[in-house]
C-alpha cells in the first residue's frame, strides 16, 4: 500500500486511514449482482451466503481482540458504539445508582454522551489525568462510590497517543462493582488486546482507523450475567434486538478483512511506527520552546503531539502544507478554542493553540518523515519571525 495522493504528505492517520487494497477488493466482490449481495437475515441461499461473510468477519475481529465472535455487535462506528455502550448501560442500571465516571480527556463521542446523561439526572465525575496524560489509579479509586455504575476510560488518546492501563483500571472497577467501557477507536488493530484476560465489559471500535471502510464499527459486550444494555434503535430483531437494521455486509466483511490484516501486521507495524516516530521527534526536538504533549514511554508509537510557543495553530497548519496533520485548536472560525485535551494536561491556551498532531501510518515512508521535519522547522521559524512576541 502506497500513499495515494502525490500532491499531499498525509500524516493524519489518527483521523482516518485509507482502505487497504485487499480490503477494498473483498468489499467490491460483495457489491454487485455477481456477488453475495443478499440480506444476511433472509431465509434463502443468497441470504445464507451473505451471512457467512458476516460470520467470518466476526471471527476475524474476535480473533484480533482475543474474544469470541458472538460478543460483537455491529454498529455504524465508534461514536455509535460509545453511545450504545454508555447510554445503554447507564439507563439499564439506573435503578441501582446514577453515578458515572469518565475522564476530561475523552473524545467528544464520549464526553458529549456523558453530558447528555447528566441532563437525564445522572451524576458524572470527570477525572483529570497527570501532566503526561496518564490517569493515576488512585484518582480513579478516590472517585468511585457505592453507587458508581459505569466507568468509561479510553485506551489510546486520539490527540496525544497516551495509553491507559485498562487492565488495572478494569480490576479497580470490578472490585467496586462497576462496569468498565473502553473507547478503543485508536487502539484496535494497533496494539495487542486480549479481551478474555481483561476486566473490560464494553469496548468501542471502528474500521476506518485500521485501513477498513468508513461507516462500520463494533461494540464488544462481555458475557456477564449483570451486563445488559438498553437499545437506542428500534425497528427489527437483528443482533438480538440490541442494534436493529439490515447488516451492511460489504462493510462488515471489509472490517473483518482489515482486522485479519492488522493481526498479521501488528508487530511489524509497531516496530516501523516506532522507528519513524522516533526519527520525527529527533528531527524537531531541538527547536527552542518545543514541548512533547504526552509521554513517549506510554504512547502508541504512531502518534506524536508537539507544541511550540509563539506560533499560532491555524497559521502553522497552513504553513505546513502540503503536510496533512491535525492542529490542537478546534479550527473554529468564530473562536480559536484550544484543545480541551491539551488544556486538561495543563497547557496554556497559547501552547495548546500551536499544538500539532503528527500521526503515522502503515504507508508512511522515511522520506515523508524527513519532509515533515524540514517543513515543520521551516514553518515554525517563519511564523516566529513574524510574531510580535519574538521579534520585538
Amino acid at each position, binding site marked *: 500500500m502506497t500513499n495515494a495522493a502525490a500532491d499531499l504528505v498525509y500524516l493524519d492517520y489518527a483521523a482516518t486511514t485509507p482502505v487497504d487494497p485487499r480490503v477494498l477488493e473483498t468489499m467490491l466482490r460483495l457489491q454487485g449482482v455477481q456477488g453475495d449481495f443478499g440480506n444476511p437475515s433472509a431465509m434463502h441461499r443468497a441470504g445464507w451466503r451473505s451471512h457467512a461473510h458476516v460470520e467470518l468477519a466476526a471471527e476475524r475481529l474476535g480473533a484480533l481482540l482475543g474474544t469470541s465472535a458472538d460478543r460483537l455487535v455491529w454498529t455504524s462506528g465508534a461514536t455509535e458504539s460509545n453511545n450504545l455502550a454508555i447510554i445503554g448501560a447507564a439507563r439499564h442500571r439506573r435503578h441501582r445508582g446514577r453515578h458515572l465516571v469518565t475522564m476530561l480527556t475523552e473524545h467528544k463521542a464520549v464526553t458529549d454522551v456523558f453530558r447528555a446523561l447528566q441532563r437525564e439526572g445522572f451524576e458524572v465525575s470527570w477525572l483529570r489525568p497527570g501532566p503526561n496524560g496518564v490517569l493515576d489509579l488512585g484518582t480513579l479509586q478516590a472517585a468511585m462510590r457505592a453507587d458508581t455504575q459505569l466507568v468509561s476510560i479510553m485506551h489510546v488518546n486520539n490527540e496525544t497517543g497516551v495509553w491507559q492501563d485498562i487492565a488495572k483500571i478494569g480490576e479497580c472497577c470490578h472490585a467496586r462493582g462497576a462496569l468498565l467501557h473502553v473507547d478503543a477507536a485508536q487502539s484496535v488493530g494497533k496494539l495487542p488486546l486480549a479481551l478474555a484476560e481483561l476486566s473490560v465489559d464494553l469496548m468501542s471500535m471502528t474500521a476506518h482507523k485500521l485501513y477498513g471502510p468508513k461507516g462500520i464499527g463494533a461494540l464488544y459486550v462481555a458475557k456477564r450475567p449483570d451486563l445488559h444494555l438498553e437499545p437506542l434503535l428500534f425497528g427489527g430483531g437483528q443482533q438480538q434486538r440490541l442494534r436493529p437494521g439490515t447488516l451492511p455486509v460489504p462493510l462488515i466483511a471489509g472490517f473483518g478483512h482489515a482486522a485479519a490484516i492488522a493481526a498479521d501486521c501488528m508487530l511489524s507495524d509497531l516496530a516501523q511506527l516506532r522507528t519513524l516516530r522516533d526519527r520525527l521527534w529527533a528531527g524537531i526536538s531541538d527547536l527552542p520552546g518545543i514541548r512533547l504533549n504526552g509521554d513517549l514511554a506510554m504512547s502508541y508509537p504512531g502518534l506524536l503531539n508537539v507544541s511550540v510557543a*509563539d506560533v*499560532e495553530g491555524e*497559521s502553522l497548519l497552513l504553513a505546513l502544507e502540503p503536510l496533512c496533520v491535525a492542529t490542537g485548536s478546534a479550527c473554529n*472560525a468564530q473562536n*480559536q478554542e484550544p484543545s480541551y485535551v491539551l488544556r486538561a494536561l495543563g497547557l496554556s491556551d497559547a501552547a495548546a493553540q500551536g499544538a500539532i498532531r503528527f500521526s503515522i501510518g502503515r504507508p508512511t515512508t522515511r522520506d515523508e518523515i524527513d519532509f515533515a521535519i524540514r517543513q515543520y522547522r521551516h514553518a515554525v521559524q517563519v511564523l516566529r519571525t513574524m*510574531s*510580535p*512576541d519574538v521579534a520585538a
Partner: protein
Amino acid sequence: MSRDPYSERVRALFSSPLHAGSMSTPYRVLVDDQGIRIELSATLDGDVIQRLRFRAWGCPHVVAAAEWICTQLEGESAARLQDFAITELMQSLAVPVEKSGRILVVEDAVRALGAAIKESSTIAGQAEQD
C-alpha cells in the same frame, strides 16, 4: 472546517508576506485583542507613508490582511490610516464573515497607527510654534 477556507489571494499573501518585519521608528503601535496581536510600524516622507511593516500573531486571514494593508497603504497619505475601513479588504480576500471580528482588530491597529502619527505631528507642530 469541511472546505478550503482560504481564497487564492489569502494563500498568496500568507505565503509571501513581503512586508513582514519591524522598523525602528517612532511610528509603531501594537494592538492585542481577541487573541490577535498586530504590530504596525511606518516611516514617513512628509505626510506620505514611505514604508509600512507588520508583525502578527493570528490566523492566516489576519496575516494576509496585514500584508494586504501594507501593500495598499504604502505611498498613500498618512491621513488615510485614521479612517481606514475593512470593507474592501474583506471583499478582496474573501474573508469569511465569522472572521470579521479578527479583521477588525487589524483595522484597530491601522487606525491606532494613524492616531499615533497625527499625535506626533501635532506635538511637533506645537513645538515649532513654541
